[in-house]
């Protein structure tokens, strides 16, 4: 009996500690999120579920990139490339019809830009790979978990070539081969064909997944830089975002939208 009481007290104490830690982790990191509930058991190596980003990275008031509160260390060549990317959003925004955003012509947003955009993604464990389905654009990416190496000379891919492993409870993903015609974010932040990205995904509690990445791109950045932490929330059955929708940007629709809305709104015939 004595042991049971002592055990109960220990469990309660642990729950209090972990609940406080969870609350502290969430403090200020998400906007519009429901109040934090006590953490419930979960397998930290199983990221299965539908997740919605919105906290942390992605700040609307950052000076240069949505990924970072500070300016990233652009080289002169990187700065020139950034200046040539004309986005309809962010601190350098131009009217979309006068810009050169690739997705304005229904091109894929690519991996990094998709990760900073606030649309649901679904993570699925599939044996030797972890698959992520992205609602935005109806694309997916595979993270190979079978101890293979990333290719030395990868073909360019909008969603890159990714290999992952577990470092404790953190999923570490190395990605190469990202097609540099994509942007890092909505604001036209560039990356070159030399880019290597190391993502670190950590499931803080059952409902909270955090992402940071370190980007190495000596052509456009004078040194590697690490993103702010981006927070994703697990979407339960009752969430309107629990079910991924078909969000395809068909050129047929995009061209019609440009002709009838985007161009005339900016005075472009």
């Amino acid at each position, binding site marked *: 009996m004595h042991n049971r009481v002592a055990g109960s007290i220990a469990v309660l104490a642990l729950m209090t500690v972990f609940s406080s830690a969870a609350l502290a982790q969430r403090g200020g990191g998400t*906007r*519009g*999120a*429901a109040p934090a509930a006590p953490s419930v058991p979960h397998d930290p190596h199983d990221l299965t579920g539908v997740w*919605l*980003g*919105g906290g942390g990275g*992605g700040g*609307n*008031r950052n000076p240069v990139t949505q990924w970072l509160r500070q300016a990233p260390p652009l080289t002169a060549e990187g700065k020139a490339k950034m200046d040539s990317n004309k986005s*309809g*959003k*962010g*601190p350098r*925004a*131009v*009217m*979309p*019809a006068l810009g050169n955003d690739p*997705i304005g012509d*229904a091109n894929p947003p690519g991996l990094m830009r998709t990760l900073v*955009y*606030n*649309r649901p993604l679904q993570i699925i464990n599939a044996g030797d790979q972890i698959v992520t389905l992205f*609602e935005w654009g109806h694309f997916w990416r595979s993270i190979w978990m079978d101890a293979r190496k990333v290719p030395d000379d990868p073909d360019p891919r909008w969603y890159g070539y990714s290999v992952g492993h577990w470092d404790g409870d953190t999923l570490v993903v190395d990605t190469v081969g990202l097609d540099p015609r994509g942007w890092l974010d*909505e604001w036209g932040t560039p990356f070159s064909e030399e880019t290597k990205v190391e993502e670190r995904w950590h499931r803080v509690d059952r409902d909270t997944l955090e992402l940071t990445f370190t980007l190495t791109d000596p052509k456009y950045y004078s040194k590697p830089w690490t993103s702010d932490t981006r927070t994703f*929330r697990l979407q339960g059955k009752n969430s*309107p*975002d629990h079910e991924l*929708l078909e*969000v*395809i*940007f*068909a050129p047929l*629709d*995009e061209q*019609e*939208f440009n002709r*009838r*809305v*985007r161009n*005339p*709104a*900016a*005075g472009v015939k």
Partner: protein
Amino acid sequence: MKSTLFFVFLVLIGAVSLFAHHGTGISYDQDAWITVKGTVTEFAWKNPHSQLYLDIKDEKGETVNYAIELNSPGVMTRYGWSRRTFKVGDMIEFQVHPSRVGAPVGEALCPCKVKINGIELKSEEQPAQQPQQ
């Protein structure tokens, strides 16, 4: 085109401050809301953004087709809207941000203020995180 007063049914109702980095809206005057009134000619429930087309009267009494850029079907679905929310022939009053160049185009991203045949349309869902569209 002299100004947005070109449209007799456009009523300037006030100024609203939004994020300077707001969405795709830089083609529109994000500091102004106007109300457009007219009859639905087409509702395009499509990506990248849905569009509602209205016939309205200009100051000369001539009919002009006005385009309203709405949010994507995915976002609007989560507000409880559907491809059947508007029908051809519906009488609409819609608050929009007007085009900066005075074109007959406006923007209204959810949550929206709109009446259909005199009845205010409710936005049922309020997503926790609204995409920056």
